[in-house]
């Protein structure tokens, strides 16, 4: 894409094409011979990583769309069926959902890199603005994608975000009706979001082409911010940049795979495993993590319209960055002050993100306001001012000079690091206290689970005992509607044979029909049937249980969670702690107490439970010692029942968990070897250039 090329393919067939459509010349000049600055560091591989992620999202997305049903009544179920029944559906879904987050991780790194090295400055303004447009499109796509599973967070996230437009004076309400295609978020909304979610990635791909084109016209920026002058300053794109990018992608894949295979739900919200319910707002609505800084800005402004303007302004302001920062020196490497402020700005963004996830009260609101001010001050005050008062260090004459001088100068320890740490520390210290005070329930104690950790497998005995507990106790009120009898005989499950599963199924009566006479009839269950629900519909369940419908248990261990709080949620990434749901469920089953503690009032018809949010639960104590007889000699105690049934429910929530962890290990072995090979190849290729 950098002008006409003199490349001529040697193969006559390719020559024939080349004369009519010079596509090989275009590829050659853009991705093979293209001169790239020789001092690029690894932060520059994120461009390739992003292209890779875009391809990945489109590929997995197209396949997922073949199995997904965009209908308000069926969407939630169809996503669950993808995960349970489609071949490698769980993998596709995890790749796509985690992929969205990883895409944003990469784009944020890419943007901060541009910010640090001044990649938006003359002559790359258009390149930068195209990037901001891609970012906006990504946000829209990500938001609409999050709506598609039609869980509680999907629904209420959609409600809150679309309502942002109602802040527009005069026409706001009609814009919102137009977005919804109805009087509230509903089926028409889901349909159009699906359509747009399918369309926008291709629009992104189009803008990416423009972005790359503009990049190849202006040339890449580089860590020293001086334009290449001679041949000596550059290396050809292939093999140098290609191999380095491959190594970068391989390392990024390791991170990606960590989440896909070991913590697929870490970046999501437990509430999204509850089907959308227009009648109940979840107590705490949070958008996906990548919107959190902007959500925090929105909430810290007490006026609705001003809040919305500030939120969008926070993104749009990036478009004006090339003119707000008029300093001649590009790279912050040579701008001592700008470098400090850059890191402070990074910290401000991260802290805003943290605040966006916290309830809007007390210290959080004040901190949010201060940080919002800091965010805008960076662009509107600090950068314009620095351009005037800062005295940059001298930049090297050329890139090759910079490469030669590199051995000498090591950057001095940064004051800003200390500032950032102090800031973060104080804020978190404050937040932990208030978080503790506001919790309405006790934190469930941790347990040892057979299925935790990278090599976890289900304890077959526990699964079989848990099934018994479910059948004899829970099933009188709770459904298990995503589990079919055939699942009991599948690999990674309770380990029954097909014959045992059929026998188990035939003990149930299943409604079928209509028959030839047009009547519904009952017949014994078959392996393909699903566990029948105890109530015909939600209203009946509600009426029979004092107003609180017993939830379906298929997904309960994924749909329940409790707040881990700082710093645990960071450690969890490394320890792969994913068992909040099971911990909560077992704790709840054992958390009943006869004596209501002082100061807690429990309404009529409710029971006191230590771990239930708000303590007043409608379900009476379900388990008591000796209630279910075990044939294998395990103790018939409440603690054992609770543990077994929770293990069973973890399996119902994710029948393919063992396959996921097993494949994860293989993928990791492969990726580590691959990344190693790439690294040594890269060293070899670059040996002459360093």
């Amino acid at each position, binding site marked *: 894409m950098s002008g006409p090329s003199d490349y001529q393919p040697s193969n006559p067939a390719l020559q024939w094409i080349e004369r009519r459509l010079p596509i090989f010349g275009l590829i050659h000049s853009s991705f093979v011979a293209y001169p790239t600055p020789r001092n690029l560091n690894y932060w520059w591989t994120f461009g390739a990583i992003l292209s890779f992620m875009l391809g990945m999202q489109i590929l997995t997305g197209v396949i997922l769309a073949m199995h997904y049903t965009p209908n308000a009544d069926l969407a939630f179920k169809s996503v669950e069926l993808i995960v349970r029944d489609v071949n490698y559906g769980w993998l596709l879904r995890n790749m796509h959902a985690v992929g969205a987050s990883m895409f944003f991780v990469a784009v944020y790194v890419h943007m901060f890199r541009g910010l640090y090295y001044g990649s938006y400055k003359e002559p790359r303004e258009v390149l930068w603005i195209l990037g901001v447009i891609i970012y906006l499109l990504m946000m829209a796509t990500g938001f609409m994608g999050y709506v598609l599973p039609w869980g509680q967070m999907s629904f*209420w996230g959609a*409600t*809150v975000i*679309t*309502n*942002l437009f*109602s802040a527009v004076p005069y026409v706001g309400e009609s814009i919102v*009706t*137009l*977005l*919804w*295609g*109805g*009087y*509230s*978020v*509903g089926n*028409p909304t889901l349909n*159009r979001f699906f359509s747009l979610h399918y369309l926008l990635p291709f629009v992104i791909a189009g803008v990416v082409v423009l972005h790359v084109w503009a990049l190849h016209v202006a040339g890449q920026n580089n860590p020293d911010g001086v334009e290449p002058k001679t041949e000596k300053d550059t290396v050809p794109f292939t093999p140098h940049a290609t191999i380095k990018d491959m190594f970068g992608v391989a390392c990024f894949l390791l991170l990606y795979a960590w989440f896909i295979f070991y913590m697929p739900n870490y970046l999501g919200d437990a509430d999204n495993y509850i089907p959308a319910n*227009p*009648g*109940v*707002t979840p*107590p*705490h*609505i949070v958008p996906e993590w990548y919107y959190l800084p902007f959500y925090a800005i929105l*909430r810290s402004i*007490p*006026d*609705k*319209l001003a*809040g919305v303007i500030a939120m969008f302004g926070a993104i749009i302001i990036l478009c004006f960055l090339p003119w707000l920062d008029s300093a001649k020196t590009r790279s912050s490497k040579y701008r001592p002050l700008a470098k400090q402020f850059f890191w402070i700005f990074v910290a401000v963004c991260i802290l805003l993100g943290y605040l966006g996830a916290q309830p*809007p*009260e007390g210290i959080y609101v004040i901190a949010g306001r201060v940080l919002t001010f800091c965010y805008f001050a960076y662009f509107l005050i600090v950068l314009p001012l620095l351009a005037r008062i800062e005295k940059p260090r001298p930049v090297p004459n050329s890139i090759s000079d910079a490469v030669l001088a590199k051995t000498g100068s090591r950057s001095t320890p940064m004051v800003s690091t200390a500032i950032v740490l102090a800031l973060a520390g104080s804020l978190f210290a404050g937040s932990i206290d208030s978080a503790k005070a506001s919790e309405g329930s006790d934190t469930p104690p941790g347990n040892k689970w057979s299925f935790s950790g990278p090599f976890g497998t289900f304890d077959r005995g526990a699964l079989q005992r848990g099934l018994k507990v479910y059948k004899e106790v829970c099933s009188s009120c709770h459904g298990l509607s995503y589990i079919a009898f055939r699942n009991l005989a599948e690999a990674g499950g309770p380990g029954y044979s097909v014959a045992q599963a059929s026998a188990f199924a035939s003990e149930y009566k299943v409604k079928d029909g209509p028959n030839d006479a047009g009547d519904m009839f009952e017949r014994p269950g078959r392996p393909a049937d699903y566990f029948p629900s105890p109530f015909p519909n939600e209203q009946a369940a509600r009426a029979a249980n004092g107003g609180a419908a017993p939830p379906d248990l298929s997904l309960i261990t994924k749909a329940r969670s409790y707040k881990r709080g700082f710093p645990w949620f960071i450690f969890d990434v490394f320890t792969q702690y994913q068992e909040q749901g099971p911990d909560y469920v077992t704790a709840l089953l054992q958390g009943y107490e006869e004596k209501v503690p002082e100061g807690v009032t429990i309404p009529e018809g409710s029971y006191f439970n230590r771990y239930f949010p708000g303590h007043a639960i409608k379900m009476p104590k379900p388990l008591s010692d000796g209630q279910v007889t075990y044939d294998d000699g395990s103790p018939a105690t409440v603690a054992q029942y609770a543990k077994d049934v929770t293990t069973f429910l973890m399996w119902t929530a994710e029948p393919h968990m063992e396959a996921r962890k097993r494949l994860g290990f293989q993928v990791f072995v492969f990726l580590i070897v691959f990344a190693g090979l790439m690294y040594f190849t890269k060293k070899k290729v670059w040996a002459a250039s360093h």
Partner: protein
Amino acid sequence: MNPDASTIAAGAPIEVDLSPIAEGQDIKVFWRGKPIYISHRTKKQIEEARAVNVASLPDPQSDEARVKSGHDQWLVVIGICTHLGCIPIAHEGSYDGFFCPCHGSVYDTSGRIRQGPAPSNLAVPPYQFVSDTKIQIG
């Protein structure tokens, strides 16, 4: 992309029987996919709503203007927070009215905004009394 004909047709007026709602209780019905709170207010709640100085409210409106005269005990409001559209919880918050869990808006016994980021009072849907114990919404 505006609502299609069937969506509009499904949004036709509905009738609600008020007789089963005891004093101090409230029900939630859905109209056009929106939750509508119908509350049977107690004497105390009505007095609270009328005692405030209207001019001091963020969105000044008297309680009389928000209910039908002669049926002062009935408050009918759209249960959608005017901030960003969550459903406020009835009988919560420091004004004995509604409390929105999303960003903490508090409404009083007349559904008027008293605290928090919401800009205006809970909207009153179009409705009239068909008889003393029955209303038509829409």
